[in-house]
């Protein structure tokens, strides 16, 4: 069982400064592994323990986003893949899903590559909160999707999961290969061990460039996205706000 976990690097909000005037957020430290994605990594590691296989963490972005992969490596994933390039900046969820699908094909086609029977995604990111990459990736891969899986197991070629619904939970079964969007209440992500942190920093991260995936600059970033960011505004901090 080979599992791919899609992870995202997010800002460490405890270590940023915000300039309303410039409309910018300045980072002062490293980036974090999206806390929602940590649940997906944890589930992948638990499933690997139950059924032998490998776990690959993959992210799409630019230089500092590698920090998220290092955390995933420290938590225990087998390998890390970084689809990297400045042209990816501004990509919407649709572009990200297409890039991940292309990267998966490239990894499977590479020497020693094997199909990813299961793809796991976090529920959303704390910054944009769209939660669209998982569903868009399921669509791009033409796979069934288990949305907001709480307790997930594998049984005779199927994913069996308790999923969150509007009024509670229900159980779903889908055949593999499949994609699971992991609910933030699914598990308690492990804290990496000190020694694993020291080793994670030295481990290899496989870099993939868009051009290797057959993607031109027009296919990705703002150019390739259907979603346009019209304006970025940092709201004024007001002291007199009250919750009704």
């Amino acid at each position, binding site marked *: 069982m080979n599992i791919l976990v899609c992870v995202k690097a997010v800002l460490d909000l405890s270590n940023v400064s915000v300039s309303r005037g410039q409309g910018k957020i300045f980072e002062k*430290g*490293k980036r*974090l592994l999206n806390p929602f994605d940590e649940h997906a990594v944890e589930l992948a590691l638990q499933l690997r323990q139950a059924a032998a296989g490998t776990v690959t963490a993959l992210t799409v972005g630019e230089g500092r986003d590698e*920090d998220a992969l*290092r*955390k995933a490596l*420290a938590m225990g994933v087998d390998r890390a893949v970084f689809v990297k390039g400045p042209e990816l900046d501004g990509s919407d969820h649709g572009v990200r899903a297409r890039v991940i699908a292309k990267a998966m094909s490239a990894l499977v086609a590479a020497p020693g590559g094997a199909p990813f029977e299961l793809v796991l995604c976090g529920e959303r990111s704390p910054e944009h909160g769209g939660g669209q990459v998982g569903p868009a990736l399921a669509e791009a891969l033409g796979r069934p999707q288990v949305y907001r899986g709480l307790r997930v197991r594998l049984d005779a070629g199927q994913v069996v999961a308790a999923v969150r619904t509007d009024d509670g939970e229900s159980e779903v079964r889908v055949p593999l290969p499949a994609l699971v969007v992991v609910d933030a209440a699914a598990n308690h992500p492990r*804290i*990496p*061990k*000190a*020694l694993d*942190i*020291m080793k*994670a*920093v030295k481990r290899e991260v496989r870099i993939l460039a868009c051009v290797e995936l057959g993607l031109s600059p027009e296919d990705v970033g703002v150019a390739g996205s259907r979603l346009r960011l019209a304006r970025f505004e940092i709201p004024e901090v007001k002291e007199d706000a009250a919750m009704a």
Partner: protein
Amino acid sequence: MDFTFTEEQQMLREMVRDFVNQEVKPRAAQIDREEKIPNELLRQAAELGLFGVSFPEEYGGAGAGKIGYCIAVEELAHGCNSLTTTIGASQSIGAMAIYLDGSEEQKQRYLVPLAKGEKLGAFCLSESNAGSDPAAMSTTAVKQGDHYVLNGSKNFITNGVRADVLIVFAITDKALRAHGGTTAFILEREYPGIRVGKVEDKMGLRGSDTASLFFEDVRVPASNVLGQLGKGFVTAMKCLDMGRLTLGAGCLGMAKEMLDLSVAYAKERVQFGEPIATKQAVQFMLAEMAMRIYAMESLVYRTAWAHENGQKISRESAIVKCFCTEAAEKVVDLALQIHGGMGYMKELPIERAYRDARINRIFEGTNEIQRLVIALDVIKKGRY
């Protein structure tokens, strides 16, 4: 000069912070109240590698060095000083003695389980009549065949109740005493003749056990002499250099936690129609706290860096210990003042920190002794 922490150091900090926020802070008041750190919490800390952060991987550690260890201690101290002290006593001075002066066989047998947190260590130097003056110790070790027979007692031993491995200092030559007549021994808790005496009822650090230990005809294999015969005092002083540095790191973490709490409270607490953070009297207190923290941080990591790079840090670790313990005490006091009546209540962690902080000026060598160490070194070698 580069003051940037490496990627692994930043990740290590994040890891310990997560552990402290998730597992330690919610239990810290209970640890203080019940005077016991749950075994489960110690097991979790061990699993994460927090008992061997600085030691190389081949000895069961994480290989994060002195700077990494200071980072870990700093973050632990945000949550619980009792836990920090328990881990620190085992690692900084207990296991450290074996790492610095132990034989390869001793390292494999004792350091590895200590670094993995499978066993807990204690450093047994102080006696009831030998505190600031360890040369006055009366515990003796007499050679009989292939064993030494230890007799005497030790006082105020951190981890004295729980420790499995004891580093015990004893007089092997009464004529030479501190100058070639003191030897360090590794004792296993199971050796016949070791007895726990009084378990102290302390003002602070109530979750960290402190006890006296009695040694009555304890037979210790000669192979458990740690370092060279008669050189125990040198071993002790080397360990204390590390202990004093990491105590400074703990003071730094505690002080940062106090500042975080104080800033949040000052922004939230409204008096005279506005948050007290707008009042100059409170701002001045926050500034005093921030200045001390900046100085503490600079001292701790400069000294950790020097130690990491093989420099001797006896004077520097004394400066770290002396300055940081006094600065932390002032910071805690200011935090309590900013919190007003609430700061005095057990409901907030400040009251506990206030009690915990007081011992820092006394243990690991009193600040008066640190000033002597600093002054004598300055007189001998001049300034930097």
